[in-house]
């Protein structure tokens, strides 16, 4: 009898502690500072505030005192009058991500809910296509392994491509077939048709150049991940694997396939972003950094407590 009382009391206390902590965390995560009404006006650096998860904005010319919107995103990207926000839904197991397509006043134009957790997001330079990469658990043969799924959405027509896995890809003129293909990091050219993406298969990664209208692709080069096309459409910034879990930022000239390593010596695991034709931005250690695209100079910190940079132009 005494044991039963002890057991019940102890259990009640522990359950109470768990509920108190959980409800307390609710207030912590819901705590909202003032919400700014952001727009996609030119000359801004937009980013994910890593402390709150909210989207923040600073003028590129004077990156101090960010304004935070009420919108929470794990990845964020913009181009022209379109923005995309990838936000994992709280309390979903396995994880489910909301892909929010936003207009220039951050109003939601379209929502797509897909399995997986956010990894990369991009808007084509013409603002007409929104592309993303999600990590999906349980697809791989290691029970805890991940695979990636890259998809896109046509803003004008409302057409959704859940995954580009079925894209016919040619390697050296031959159609490439493999059961384990993964795609990640889509980037579009200004024409909204040519695109680049990383294909991972059998332990290797390839840069694939795709033609969206004809819906086919070809491999250009090995060891290129998370490509990002320059505004002039001639170069690709990417992360190059240097070891297990170590990547270096580099720029590939598409005309002569020459690679230039950038001045950032630390390992960068991000899809880089071109601020203009001369500067590349990326997230690293909870900050957004800028480095010249020609391999010169040194990295410069643009904003602290920030990730997933996006630039309006």
């Amino acid at each position, binding site marked *: 009898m005494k044991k039963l009382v002890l057991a019940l009391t*102890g259990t009640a206390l522990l359950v109470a*502690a768990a509920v108190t902590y959980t409800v307390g965390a609710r207030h912590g995560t819901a705590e909202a500072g003032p919400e700014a009404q952001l727009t996609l006006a030119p000359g801004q650096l937009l980013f994910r505030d890593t402390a709150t998860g909210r989207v923040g904005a600073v003028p590129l010319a004077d990156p101090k005192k960010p304004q935070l919107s009420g919108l929470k995103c794990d990845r964020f990207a913009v181009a022209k009058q379109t923005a995309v926000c990838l936000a994992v839904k709280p309390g979903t197991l396995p994880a489910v991500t909301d892909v929010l397509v936003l207009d220039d006043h951050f109003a939601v134009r379209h929502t797509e809910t897909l399995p997986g957790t956010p990894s990369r997001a991009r808007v084509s330079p013409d603002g007409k296509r929104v592309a993303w990469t999600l990590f999906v658990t349980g697809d791989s043969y290691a029970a805890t*392994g991940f695979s990636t799924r890259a998809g896109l959405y046509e803003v004008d027509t409302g057409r959704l491509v859940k995954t580009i896995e079925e894209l016919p890809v040619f390697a050296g003129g031959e159609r490439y077939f493999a059961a384990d293909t993964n795609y990640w990091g889509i980037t579009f050219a200004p024409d909204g048709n040519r695109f680049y993406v990383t294909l991972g298969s059998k332990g290797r990664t390839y840069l694939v150049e795709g033609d969206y209208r004809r819906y086919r692709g070809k491999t250009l080069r090995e060891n290129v991940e998370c490509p990002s096309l320059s505004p002039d459409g001639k170069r690709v910034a990417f992360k190059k694997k240097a070891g297990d879990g170590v990547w270096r930022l580099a720029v590939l000239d598409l005309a002569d396939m020459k690679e230039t390593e950038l001045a950032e010596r630390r390992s960068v695991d991000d899809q880089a972003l071109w601020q203009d034709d001369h500067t590349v931005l990326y997230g690293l250690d909870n900050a957004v950094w800028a480095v010249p695209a020609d391999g010169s100079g040194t990295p410069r910190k643009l904003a602290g407590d920030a990730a997933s940079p996006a630039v309006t132009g």
Partner: protein
Amino acid sequence: MYIAASRTSDPAAGTDRKPALNRVSANVVALGVVSLVTDVSSEMVTAVLPLYLVLGLGLNPLQFGLLDGLYAGATAVVRVLGGHLADRWRRLKAVAGFGYGLSAVCKLGLVAAGSSVAAIGVVLAADRTGKGLRTGPRDALISLSSEPDALGRSFGVHRAMDTVGAFLGPLVAMAVLALSLGSYPSVFFTSFCVAAIAVLLLALFVKDHPGGVDRAAVSARAAFGLLKQSDFRRVTLWAALLGLVTVGDSFVYLVLQRRWEIAATYFPLLPLGTAGVYLLLAVPLGRLADRVGRWPVFLGGHVALCLALVLLCGPAALPFAVVALGLHGVFYAATDGVLMAAAGPLVPPDLRATGLAVVQTGQAVARMLSSVLFGLAWTLWDLRPAVLAATACLAAVAVAAALAKPVRP
């Protein structure tokens, strides 16, 4: 006949008319409850950990895989150590309790580790150590608290309760995430509270197995001497050999997903299918094992896995997938607890924890090797040939094991 078995059992339990739970000792039920509650706690964390590491901390999946894989092997060694210490000190409950407690404290460690990947690595290693330490003594307690002729049923009851916990864990984690608006520390803290409840229940309701202290009998040498005993050695070796040709769960699910094109959203439901069948059949198959012999049922489980694999290579019609998943559940229900029930009586009571830990470790290491080999075969030959080859090997070893009859019925 072991004294322990008759001490804790109901004196009138000789008749088969009594309901199942009456023939299972209170201690086994108490251990089942502790396992149930602990599994809720650990499955909560397992369910959110990949999300937390990749999304919350920005680890890439490869780093996560390394972190995860690194500790899987470590438990194997700790398991034997836990069994040996428990036997040596004659403190099965204390060693098991230490293992449960260590894992519980580790949940708080996850909260404290914050965003430090190194600290999280250390905490996860300690958590797995706790799991490794407690398994041997716990199974020894189950086996010593049961009548020898009802061992299969006891392990069946325990494993069924354990599986209920595994079902509930992810649900509790989802509820906590929803209530806390996506706060991972809340999941870890709640997981700690749940684990602490389990430790409390263990302390209050589980009885240790008393026995005469004979330190000479449980020296390290005596533990190694176990393998000289031919019955025990043969069970250990055959269990490991069968483990070596057993296709891992994740591969089975992946084949299902690939061939039946199951959407990623439903993919996590596949293990629940296996667990559901396991839950339903753990007790009936345990009882069957008590009646017709544990080794035949254990081998029968492998035959079920063989059939499941053959079905996986058949036409991609829905009924095939459902039956294959069901057979996979039968495989678990007929092997996991039943092996412990088969091996238990071959080990003297003073060495029970060590002996059971040795069998489990042999099987676990063999299965890890099998995963590597199967992954390799898949890469080299493609999916279907790899599955067929694995099925052929499994069938061959199962037939050989049936002919060798390592355990006399």
